[in-house]
């Protein structure tokens, strides 16, 4: 159960954290249609996160934080205890999703990198021996296909729009490309679950993801930047709970109300 829970937290935290970053865009998009699209993507990812956190809690109740404020069993749902009562180092998302949001080019580039990698995983997850994960994979793949198309369309548009938009797009690509590889790295938890037919080894999707990105970037007349992948600290990165400075700042805001009222009902 522990490995499955850890695996579900990885996929769940990716969705939760990026959903949060996207929700910070609310009422700030360049056009109403984009405000709607971004909120929609954030909602889809939040939905995926909720299913995955619930699956993690079911697989191993020990991953769910115990709330000291409750003497007995807390009525706070598992998904909320996981989202609002873990410290940054207990999150298992990659560092790509947690970075502070930048301009709209940053949004679409991050979404392209994320959804390309996630789609490849979800499509394979649809064949998981775990029926819950299989359902999440099947449903999620449909959603993320749309996210990827939205991102790809904007990446091409910005790359070939104006000088200014191209400059910004290339800047965002330079800034984000070093964080891409972490999504595709093998991790013992994922590898073990892949072997038992429950999870997906992201390393096995690397070629497919590279092909998808290459196609989009070709349409964008833009090369993949020549940058080294961003290293971790002491050999550890997001999947091991070693994050950037941005995550704990983000959680301070995200968790503040829930933590101020640990015995509250919402």
């Amino acid at each position, binding site marked *: 159960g522990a490995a499955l829970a850890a695996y579900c937290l990885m996929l769940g935290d990716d969705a*939760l954290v990026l959903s*949060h970053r996207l*929700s*910070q865009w*609310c*009422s*700030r*998009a*360049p*056009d*109403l*249609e*984009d*405000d*709607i699209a971004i*909120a*929609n993507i*954030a*909602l889809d990812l*939040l*939905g995926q*996160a*909720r299913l995955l*956190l619930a699956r993690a809690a079911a697989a191993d109740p020990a991953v769910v934080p115990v709330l000291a404020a409750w003497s007995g069993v807390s009525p706070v*749902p598992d*998904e*909320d205890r996981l*989202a*609002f009562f873990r410290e940054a180092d207990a999150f298992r998302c990659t560092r790509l999703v947690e970075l502070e949001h930048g*301009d*709209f080019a940053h949004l679409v580039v991050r979404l392209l990198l994320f959804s390309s990698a996630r789609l490849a995983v979800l499509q394979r997850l649809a064949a998981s021996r775990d029926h819950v994960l299989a359902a999440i994979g099947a449903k999620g793949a449909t959603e993320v296909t749309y996210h990827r198309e939205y991102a*790809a369309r904007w990446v*091409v*548009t*910005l790359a*070939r*729009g*104006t000088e*200014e*938009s191209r400059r*910004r797009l290339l800047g965002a690509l330079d800034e984000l490309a070093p964080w891409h590889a972490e999504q595709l790295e093998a991790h013992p938890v994922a590898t073990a679950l892949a072997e038992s037919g429950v999870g997906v080894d992201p390393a096995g999707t690397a070629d497919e993801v590279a092909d998808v990105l290459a196609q989009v970037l070709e*349409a*964008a007349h833009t090369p993949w930047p020549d940058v080294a992948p961003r290293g971790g600290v002491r050999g550890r990165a997001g999947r091991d709970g070693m994050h950037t400075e941005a995550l704990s700042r983000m959680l301070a*805001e*995200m968790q*503040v*109300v*829930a933590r101020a*009222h640990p*015995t*509250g*009902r*919402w």
Partner: protein
Amino acid sequence: AALEADFEAVIARHERIEPRDWMPEGYRRTLVRQIAQHAHSEIIGMQPEGNWLTRAPSLRRKAVLLAKVQDEAGHGLYLYSACETLGVSRAELTDMLIEGRQKYSSIFNYPTLSYADVGTIGWLVDGAAICNQVPLCRTSYGPYGRAMIRVCKEESFHQRQGYELLMTMMAGTDEQRAMVQESVDRFWWPALMMFGPPDDASPNTARSLAWGIKRNTNDELRQKFVDMSVPQAERLGVTFPDPQLRWNEERGAHDFGQPDWDELTRVISGDGPCNAERIAHRRRAHEDGAWVREAASAYAARQQEHPHDQKEQH
């Protein structure tokens, strides 16, 4: 004159005027002003709730709020489209908003100060909006009436969700109950002001009624809202901050105090607690997005010129 007679006949039969029909210039102007103001309210209304989106205390509430704010953007979109049928573009309307030449609902110039405000806005603000809007589903201008039907359906869903949040919080801790009451205290009077000034101080009402744009006076709708809200407050376990509020058996309606109309004047004229911030936020988003919109136009123009190119790129 024949056109005008046709127009009057349609109005008299309570049927719809459609975009291609002839209409008096005053009717068109009044409609543009009202629909634009309504659209702007949806867009500006995303901010006070958006303020708590990133702090929602449960994932379910976060999803509900995100969906709600998204719906507001959607309402803004239909209403801008309805306005465009009257010959004013969304870009022009946006400029009028951020230059302060068109208004939006005064209620969104109040700050949201706790998560309970999310519930109160759903219950009272959306509640007041529904009272205002349900009659507008029968408004005489077709595109506006049809937009309102869709908007009202979603608004009543939002109102139920807001009320349900408050109900849940009232079943929580003492602090949560105090938070709900404090929030209701803050929003009650501004909600009553949403129906506009009293009838005797609302010079345009008569004409709007005659044209079938409005279907009820401000005071009629305000009364209806009070009568609807009082039993809901009782069920919730909160009070309204109005010592004059009581049931009047004779009228079969509630008597209630008058809001501070000077405050409404100040807020409408730009000096409310958050007017400057709301407009500045909208302006910043609009300006920050300019390069993206320009890129999209430039790219679209280029694709028109070189349609072959377009094929390459999916």
